């Protein structure tokens, strides 16, 4: 027979169950509110508005494909770029720096053309803005023991929070001399094509939006575009399967993946 003392009441099975149910319901409703279908459409934005773009790069093929797909990136719109790279990935670091040099070169050529062709109205010189390269520890190294994996995954998640909070003051390269740290906090847009790190970055952004820390959700920050790798012809990658219902846009590059997970959008091949 259960005694009806207050302590016994709150430790009773049915009470714990009720609290758990209410908790789960609240969390579910909150998560549903974060999902892409409930997200407000983006407000109109003018060129020159400080806009932080976060690009998650992965090893080898992922990086080459991502930067190739971004060939049309306009640095006057995306005024600060953060490249997220796994520690030890020298290839991606070099490719990101090379990509930034190509943006600068394109900008310089454009301005030179305007100088030569004096008939054309000189555009306001906004330049190519700024960028930083953020290194995250790997969630799991190859051959790492399973025991220590949760710890290193947590360390990776923690690094992702810091990267999302603000661009790094120390590694930011300012190309037009207009860099002011206070212009930027959370990324406005996250773009990735699905290396493992991308799952952790997007998980971190979801946690920040869940608790609406510093207005992560209410200010409409961290919209996400996932581009499934061109190498995926018939089935999604693991990252793709994990993120298909979470990201704001889910793009596929093969027609037969159109509508996959009820989300896949085929708009053609981005890889080049």
């Amino acid at each position, binding site marked *: 027979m259960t005694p009806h003392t207050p302590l016994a009441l709150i430790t009773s099975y049915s009470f714990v169950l009720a609290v758990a149910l209410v908790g789960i319901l609240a969390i579910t409703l909150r998560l549903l509110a974060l999902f892409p279908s409930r997200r407000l*459409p*983006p*407000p*109109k*934005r003018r*060129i020159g508005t400080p*806009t932080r*773009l976060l690009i998650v790069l992965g*090893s*080898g*093929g992922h*990086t*080459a*494909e991502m930067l*190739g*797909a*971004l060939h*049309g*990136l*306009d640095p006057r*719109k*995306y005024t600060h770029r953060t490249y997220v790279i796994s520690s030890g990935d*020298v*290839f991606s670091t*070099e*490719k990101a720096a090379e990509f930034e040099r190509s943006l600068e070169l394109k900008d310089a050529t454009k301005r030179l053309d305007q100088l030569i062709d004096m008939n054309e109205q000189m555009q306001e010189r906004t330049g190519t803005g700024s960028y930083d390269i953020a290194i995250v520890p790997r969630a799991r190294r190859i051959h790492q023991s399973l025991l220590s994996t949760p710890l290193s995954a947590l360390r990776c998640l923690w690094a992702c929070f810091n990267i999302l909070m603000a661009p790094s003051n120390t590694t930011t390269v300012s190309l037009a001399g207009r860099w002011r740290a206070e212009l930027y906090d959370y990324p*406005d*847009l996250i*773009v990735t094509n699905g290396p493992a790190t991308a799952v952790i970055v997007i998980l971190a952004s979801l946690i920040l939006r869940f608790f609406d820390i510093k207005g992560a959700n209410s200010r409409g920050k961290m*919209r996400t*575009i996932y*581009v499934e*790798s*061109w*190498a*995926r*012809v*018939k*089935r999604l*990658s*693991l990252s793709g399967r994990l993120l298909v219902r979470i990201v*704001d*846009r889910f*793009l596929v590059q*093969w027609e037969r993946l159109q509508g996959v997970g009820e989300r896949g959008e085929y*708009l*053609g*091949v*981005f*890889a*080049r």
Partner: protein
Amino acid sequence: MSVDEKKQLRLCFVTIGATAAFNSLISACLEPRFLESLSGAGYTNLLIQYGKEGKAIFDKITSEIKTTKKMELVITGFDFNHSGLDKEMGAAKGGPNDLQGVVISHAGSGSILHALRISVPIIVVPNPDLLDNHQVELAEELESQGYVVHGKLNNLPAAILESEELRKRSLGWPPVNSGRHGRAADLAGVMDEEMGFLD
């Protein structure tokens, strides 16, 4: 091992990528039957990017080749280049005074796209040792669309012959009318939609 000064350079460049070992491709590309088919097709050079773990097998086989037979083919190798393979891919494509060569690649998307971009024929050989082998699907699909030769480890000489057919076809990349409204697809456009940059 001197190449005749007047003889034009023709390079077969083999790349196994940066991530996984692919020793079976290295040994398949050093088989006598394959080397003969390269010579027969007029190739002068074979360059193999063998990866971190491929040096032992590359050194072992090439030393045996040199002792048994005088090769007409110049065979060289290197492990990996952090700054990319632009130079090697370009050399396979060939300069204005060279003959066009060929690339043989593990089915990594980076190397395939690179070859399509500079339009050098590519033979794609998926690694059968990888667990989730979506690369086979990519190779099959691209071959059915006429962009690559899907090579098999046990029959690379046939792939060299097929690559000549590929060279004649030479489809452009990216597909010009693959995107919306028949234009090339553009990720920047989708990003602008998400950000509200609407002109």
